[in-house]
């Protein structure tokens, strides 16, 4: 069984006295669609950055398939876990094709160019995210939605079993949000990828994720199947505002609506 095991992970930045992560312990199993939710400053991003090895594990342990992630070589790790950042400041004029081709980096040796197989994978990734028509355009000139799709295409080209995304839909309009979540669901269900995404939209999380990790103050408040974790009671406790829930009588989807003062 492929898993990521996080045990007693704690973290305090050197410049601060506040513990950002407090003995986080959880287990992520392959095949799921995880949503990490929680208010700003609850430690979602820090947890994710540890998971991606962008922050060194100082206290506690993270194991990927029973191996300590700090022991893996950078390129070995990049063949297991890929990442879509929230925003990318790419100011170099690379074409979309070039950017997606970079997803093949962990498989290439020095001096070795892209092989026929790589090229097929890149084109398939562009097709899967509906970006094929953007192939020759500069990445810098894309709209927010297009750029995000291209970055997802890059992780598809990277072809890793684990996919980590930092607020992938935060700056997209509603159509592109749904499109992107659909793409991720397809990857999860048809390509057997495990998706771990930090999300802010409770309703999209309720619709697409099957597992939720709810964070508050550097700790995991609750984690488990979406139906059990996303409840009005939990959300009230974590976000410290009132919520009510409505259920769509046709689809059964649940909607959480913040209940602000007057109404």
């Amino acid at each position: 069984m492929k898993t990521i095991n996080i045990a007693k992970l704690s973290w305090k930045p050197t410049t601060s006295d506040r513990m950002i992560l407090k003995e986080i312990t959880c287990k992520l199993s392959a095949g799921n669609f995880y949503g990490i939710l929680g208010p700003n400053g609850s430690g979602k991003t820090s947890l994710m950055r540890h998971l991606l090895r962008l922050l060194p594990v100082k206290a506690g342990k993270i194991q990927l398939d029973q191996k300590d992630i700090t022991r893996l070589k950078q390129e070995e790790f990049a063949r297991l876990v890929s990442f879509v950042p929230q925003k990318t400041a790419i100011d170099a004029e690379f074409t979309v094709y070039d950017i997606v081709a970079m997803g093949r980096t962990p498989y290439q040796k020095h001096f070795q160019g892209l092989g026929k197989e790589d090229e097929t994978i890149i084109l398939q990734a562009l097709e899967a995210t509906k970006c094929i028509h953007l192939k020759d355009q500069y990445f810098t000139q894309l709209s927010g939605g297009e750029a995000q799709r291209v970055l997802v295409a890059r992780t598809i080209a990277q072809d890793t079993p684990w996919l980590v995304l930092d607020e992938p839909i935060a700056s997209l309009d509603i159509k592109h949000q749904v499109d992107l979540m659909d793409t991720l669901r397809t990857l999860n269900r048809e390509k057997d990828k495990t998706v771990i995404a930090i999300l802010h939209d409770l309703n999209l999380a309720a619709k697409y994720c099957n597992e939720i990790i709810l964070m508050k103050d550097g700790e995991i408040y609750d984690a488990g199947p979406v139906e059990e974790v996303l409840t009005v009671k939990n959300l009230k406790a974590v976000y410290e505002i009132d919520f009510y829930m409505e259920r769509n009588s046709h689809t059964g989807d649940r909607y959480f609506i913040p209940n602000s003062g007057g109404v």
Partner: protein
Amino acid sequence: MKKGTSRATRQYNKKRCMLVTGGLLVVLFLLMCLATSLGVASISPASIGKVIASKIPIVNQWISADDVKKTTYAIIWNVRLPRVFLSALTGGALAIVGATFQGIFRNPLADPHILGVSSGAALGATLAMLSGIQISLFGLGVIGVFAFIGAILAVILVYGVAKIGVGRSVVNMLLIGTALSTMFSAVISLLMTFNHDKIEKVYMWTLGSFSSASWDKVRFLLIFTLLGFAILLCFTRELNVILTGEETAKTLGIDTKKVIQILITISSLLVAASVSVSGIIGFVGLIIPHCVRLISGPDYRTLLPYSFFTGAIFMILSDTIARMAVPPSEIPVGIITAIIGAPYFIFILFYRQKRMHMQ
């Protein structure tokens, strides 16, 4: 809506890259011949051909330079050819280091002198001029040797200080390099105030010149340049990915810390070697990579080779002007590179922006 087609031409294409590199090589060769024939004493291309041919094994069995006048022979072989080669190597080396630094620091203002290498070299050279010591190593005179040691010590110092600090980011290194660089310059000025008689000599050295070129210096720089260029070419893919962000590079499987360390070491050695044979020549390392990037895109697979040959071509041009403009005296080549380089750079910048708007 025709943007798709014109853009596709910027896509990397191995065949085109080879072709352009070959073209630049031909231009470089022709320019080298032209630069050798130009000068106070004008020399015919035929005698240049004969002198070169007579030095090449096997070929020299058929072609001899016996009918070339002794003085002409000496000018070609001992003065102009080493000078042309040295300027080509220096221009190429500075350009590829500039391209590399701009990538790893992700800062368009980064140039080969930014890590304090050059001011360290200048301090070394100043000390050599003041001390009056006479030694020579690898064909370098005492000034060259001191400059090389000064350059290496400066980088080690910058790197060491940057490592102590929190974060160890590349930005840190850039700032520490700039700070220490300023400090070295201040020490040079301090030394100068006590040694008025040497001011002119030190000042002229810092402006850069190829007037003391020799085959020994060419050999010295050739070894560093060929090795350095070859190693940098092995890292083009890493450089491309790092250009899109250091964290992204990490998640794409690149050991950024190790790669950046290697690149900085190689680049610093290249700058140290070139500065110690020719003084501090500014601007080439800054603008050549930008010009190349504006025309053929940011991809290091094309950027590095194109920059190398364009840098070499530009430096030979500048040096030829430097020694021809006001005969019999010479203008320091660093002045020429800035005077003709800056307006050309601005022209390309505007031309390109105009073209972008028209699309």
